[in-house]
């Protein structure tokens, strides 16, 4: 089997006036390895290639990137899922400033996460043991709390590309709903009033790129729909 042809986005602000695509030939010995393995093989050829990685099992969210046009996590994406005609094109997550090569500045993404006050708020004094929550109430957090902040969703969202300062984006809104849906949280009205403007939530156009790319199989569009319903109910 011939070598895999990988084309990877390169940009080093110290030496490059503009980004460019660099071609690599990678011998995977015919194995269906993960894209992250391929990146490591390329780094052995060129130690300067920069990318983030940590857990290498899809739970830390470090290695979100764009692989043959689709966002995902390099560590849990086997070549067979993305490679076409023996070619793989790797680019950083779209829409965020590039620091170097595959490494983007996640500042805006984190800022939107922080904006939704991503922590439980409860104005009653805690009991001596845990707060009780029924299994049914707890079930409502499934599909929400598992977010790993990889930014695959928000950086595939056209509304976030155009308004990253004002639209919270799918990841932040999923977490917003995670706390709105939590029976232990008492800040519902404050949370909703922080989202009432035309941009924070309502810029979502239901394009559903977020759902298509989420490596954890989560559904931000549905969560955004629930927030909309709560906002509309709140307004009437």
């Amino acid at each position, binding site marked *: 089997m011939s070598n895999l042809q990988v084309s990877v986005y390169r940009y080093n602000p110290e030496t490059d006036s503009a980004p460019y695509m660099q071609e690599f030939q990678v011998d995977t010995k015919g194995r269906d390895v993960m894209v992250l393995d391929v990146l490591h093989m390329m780094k052995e050829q060129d*130690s300067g290639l920069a990318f983030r990685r940590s857990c290498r099992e*899809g739970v830390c969210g470090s290695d979100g990137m764009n692989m043959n046009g689709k966002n995902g996590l390099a560590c849990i994406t086997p070549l067979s899922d993305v490679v076409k005609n023996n070619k793989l094109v790797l680019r950083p997550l779209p829409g965020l400033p590039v620091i170097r090569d595959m490494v983007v500045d996640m500042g805006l993404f984190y800022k939107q996460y922080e904006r939704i006050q991503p922590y439980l708020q409860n104005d009653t004094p805690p009991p001596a043991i845990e707060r009780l929550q029924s299994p049914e109430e707890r079930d409502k957090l499934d599909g929400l709390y598992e977010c790993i902040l990889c930014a695959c969703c928000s950086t595939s969202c056209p509304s976030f590309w155009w308004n990253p300062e004002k639209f919270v984006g799918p990841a932040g809104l999923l977490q917003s709903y995670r706390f709105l849906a939590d029976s232990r949280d008492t800040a519902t009205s404050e949370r909703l009033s922080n989202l009432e403007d035309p941009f924070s939530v309502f810029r979502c156009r239901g394009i559903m790129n977020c759902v298509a790319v989420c490596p954890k199989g989560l559904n931000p569009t549905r969560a955004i729909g629930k927030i909309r319903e709560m906002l509309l109910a709140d307004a009437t």
Partner: protein
Amino acid sequence: MSNLRSLTFDAIIIGGGGAGLRAALELAKSGKKTAVLSKVFPTRSHTVSAQGGITCAIASDDPNDDWRWHMYDTVKGGDYIADQDAAEYMCSEGPKAVFELEHMGLPFSRLDNGRIYQRPFGGQSKNFGEGGQAARTCAAADRTGHALLHTLYQNNLKNDTVFLNEWYAVDLVKNASGDVVGCIAMCIETGEVVHVKSKATVLATGGAGRIYASTTNALINTGDGIGMALRAGFPMQDMEMWQFHPTGIYGAGTLVTEGCRGEGGYLINKDGERFMERYAPNAKDLAGRDVVARSMVMEILEGRGCGEKGDHVFLKLDHLGEEVLGKRLPGIVELSKTFAHVDPAKDPIPVVPTCHYMMGGIPTNIHGQAITMDESGNDHIVNGLFACGEAACVSVHGANRLGGNSLLDLVVFGRAAGMFIEGALNAGIEYLDASESDIESAMKRITRWNESEGGESIPELKAELQDIMQTSFGVFREEKNMLEGVDKLALLRERIANAHLPDKSNAFNTARVEALELDNLMEVAEATAIAALERKESRGAHSRYDYPDRDDVNWLKHSLFFPATKELKKRDVNFKPKTVDTFEPKVRTY
């Protein structure tokens, strides 16, 4: 190097995993000027990968549960070299720390009565081993570490903790009196190197599983805090004690939680036999991890392994049914499909013992204060230096950690360190400032890499190191093989000292980070190798063919590795808990 910019804090916490974030939260609430310095964005830390849960006697599953039973299990699990005052503190303070996490929002799974769900884990018992299997591990499905780490990060945001994310700590700075007064650190994004001044420096840098070729650990687990402390001349405790988790996915090394066996899964050999019944007739698949891992290796060595090469066994889960798998072990179903190409609802998962956890580390007391020992065997506090979590050796895990005790360790002792430092800062701390030459010594190794002009490649040296450790310091050990390993490591140390960093650029230079990490892997590997060679007995995770028995006469002791002389000394284990009777060493069976 007076042109270095300096940053000044009351306390600097190096590492943004569970232990670091829990310590930071305590200090942020106190209003002290604190920062967390982490080489990755905090939620990318390895705590995120913890699956099964946090073991603690919160008396939810069993209203009569008792922290003393948990303490007994912990001491027995550690093969009697856990410090009993520390185990007592962890198990008795644990419920408070777990309830706090729940109050912070951690989305624990629940029982019908609304309390936190607890599952059985290995080595757990009721009534001091007399009352059968306990279910003491509090879980958020099989994503407890993720839920815990995110909850702690979120609460640090709530309390305005300062974060230096994607900063790398290079080395500790010591003053003329030998106190730790901060560190040298590098901003990864810009390459800027700064002098961080602090009255309290907390090493919460986690484990170092990447010294082995096959590990469940994240790629970032390179023992940075251990390396820093060793280079600063401080001793390491019980470094021979490495836990091999029974169920790493064959080939990939990714972890499959012990919670699978807690929920009723079990291991089988090529004949389909549930072989743990032979090795641990009572606890079976829920014996201590060291016991299960050894039994698996015995099966493989005796020709009953599975697969073409007969080099692994199977974890059978299909009998649990899709509902239990979907509800209690959803992450495992995902990981198994991705990394083993197996749907556990239909087929068993190929697994093999895989390096998982470092029981050893920086010796500390229960307040997280680092400890060293003088010639006459007396303990001394190291001024300014603290450690908590996997990087520390309090020691609650002794020679073998129980499942679910690592998450408890990191929240209990992260919290304890935070509280102690707050008190110490209130009482007033004054150390001598570091001099120019103190700072220069801490700059030595980054300067060495930056000036390297040729030499061997970093990834190749790292791979060699990992192979040496895998070959000579695995589940079973013996002298000849370990001597070879020690010799090879000595040569490797020379080669690493002359290795080459080709990329000298500043912006997000990951090659430089990997070079600095390689030095740390080397320090951890050497300490491990010498400690393993010198401890001439088998205890907990340290199993020797040539010394197959536990030797309480000579080795009911901690080992203490001193980097300057590369000597191994013995340190007394604490057998004096404050509120319960001492658990006397017994023969350890499951």
